[in-house]
């Protein structure tokens, strides 16, 4: 959470606690705060204010966007095209909405197979979904080229920029853009969905004043989202400084840990995400070992998921899924933090391998 988000949230709680749809003074005040947040988000995302819809959260945004786009183009066709590494919420929504989900593969770095994408995008496709960048491995997707194909075919493109907004510029190549405030330091409980005015959508839920967020959204969370985004965009230098630290981790991990695969594109990537998989390592045990040393990291390994399925992203890339560690550097990270992590990692990996009796393999 960004300190600016906390401040803005508390101030908005004071001023904007009322239901913004009410006509009394308190309601109107809340409504003005909400309008201000949408206007600011629009400006920062390169959209018009009336194109910004707020939702209950990023997952809700993706579910609603896929459903509403698919329904609006029902007569055109029931095929939904997705990349193999989309967020689970996109894949689940596509499965529910489509007659047929067409999954476009990625290469070993996690980048979309553009040729395969161009081959399947045709006028009978209801919608296509491509993330701006993959949040698990950091690889940026060729969104501009993918958009060129969908635009030519008249197919709406949903771009999940949940891992990108606040970290890298997302550009204008989208019909619907989903952004996730909790990823840039906002407060959980609100999602941002930008829908170009030219794009037809048909909400699938029951009639409501706000079909994107039935019953309305949290005004303080919306205000905090806009304030935090303004703060992180103003501090781009700090965000970009993380790129060198990610390079440092990638280099150190490859050098100091035996049998490790550092995954994701080394250059065309998010500035703050680094992911690697260690052969013969139990991901859950490694997370525990690192947690004991004070490092909170994520993992795409099967043993760390409730479903016991490995990350579909790592699987689609064809890289090792076990012993996986994913690090997202916060904007407050220091070079000393990174050095401390690099210093403890080799022993942590060695210890987990020793426990599994895999030291000599």
């Amino acid at each position, binding site marked *: 959470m960004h300190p600016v988000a906390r401040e803005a949230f508390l101030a908005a709680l004071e001023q904007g606690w009322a239901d913004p749809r009410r006509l009394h003074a308190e309601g109107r005040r809340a409504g003005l705060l909400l309008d201000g947040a949408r206007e600011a988000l629009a400006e920062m995302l390169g959209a018009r204010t009336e194109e910004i819809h707020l939702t209950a959260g990023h997952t809700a945004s993706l579910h609603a966007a896929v459903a509403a786009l698919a329904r609006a183009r029902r007569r055109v066709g029931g095929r939904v095209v997705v990349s193999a590494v989309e967020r689970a919420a996109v894949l689940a929504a596509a499965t529910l909405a489509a007659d047929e989900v067409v999954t476009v593969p990625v290469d070993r770095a996690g980048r979309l197979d553009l040729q395969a994408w161009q081959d399947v995008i045709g006028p009978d496709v209801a919608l296509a979904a491509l993330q701006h960048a993959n949040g698990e491995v950091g690889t940026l997707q060729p969104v501009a080229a993918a958009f060129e194909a969908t635009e030519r075919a008249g197919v709406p493109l949903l771009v999940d920029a949940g891992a990108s907004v606040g970290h890298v510029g997302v550009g204008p190549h989208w019909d619907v853009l989903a952004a996730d405030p909790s990823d840039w330091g906002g407060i959980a409980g609100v999602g941002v969905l930008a829908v170009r005015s030219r794009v037809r959508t048909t909400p699938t839920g029951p009639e409501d004043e706000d079909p994107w967020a039935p019953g309305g959204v949290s005004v303080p969370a919306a205000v905090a989202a806009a304030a935090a985004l303004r703060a992180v965009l103003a501090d781009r230098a700090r965000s970009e400084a993380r790129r060198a630290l990610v390079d440092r981790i990638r280099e150190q991990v490859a050098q100091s840990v035996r*049998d490790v*695969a550092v995954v994701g594109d080394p250059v065309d990537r998010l500035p703050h995400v680094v992911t690697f*998989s260690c*052969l*013969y*390592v*139990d*991901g859950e045990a490694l997370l525990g070992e690192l947690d004991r040393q004070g490092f909170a990291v994520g993992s795409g*390994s*099967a*043993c760390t998921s409730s479903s*016991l*399925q*490995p990350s579909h992203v*790592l*699987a689609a890339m*064809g*890289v*090792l*899924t*076990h*012993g996986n560690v994913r690090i997202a550097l916060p904007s407050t990270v220091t070079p000393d933090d990174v050095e401390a992590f690099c210093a403890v990692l080799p022993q942590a990996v060695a210890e987990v391998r020793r426990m*599994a*009796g*895999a030291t000599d*393999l």
Partner: protein
Amino acid sequence: MDARGLRCPAPVIALARAAREVAPGTVLIVWWTDPAARHDIPAWARMRGHEVLMTEPLAPEEGDGGDDDGRAHATAYVTRVRTTSGDAAG
């Protein structure tokens, strides 16, 4: 080798141990049920220079038909791997 019921990274560790103990070029046959093994056996083979020859569902008559209570195993697969004829020490 029978790695059914083992969870990641145990099937790959067992396979790596077996690969170290056989002559280069030997074909290892492994049975497995762990969903991660589908991806991790090929990834391990690539990192170590071994060659995955094929993976397919394990025919029921090939296995023992189930555990001690006669319950069927989770969907099981068989993978054949030819160990590298080069320097296997890795």
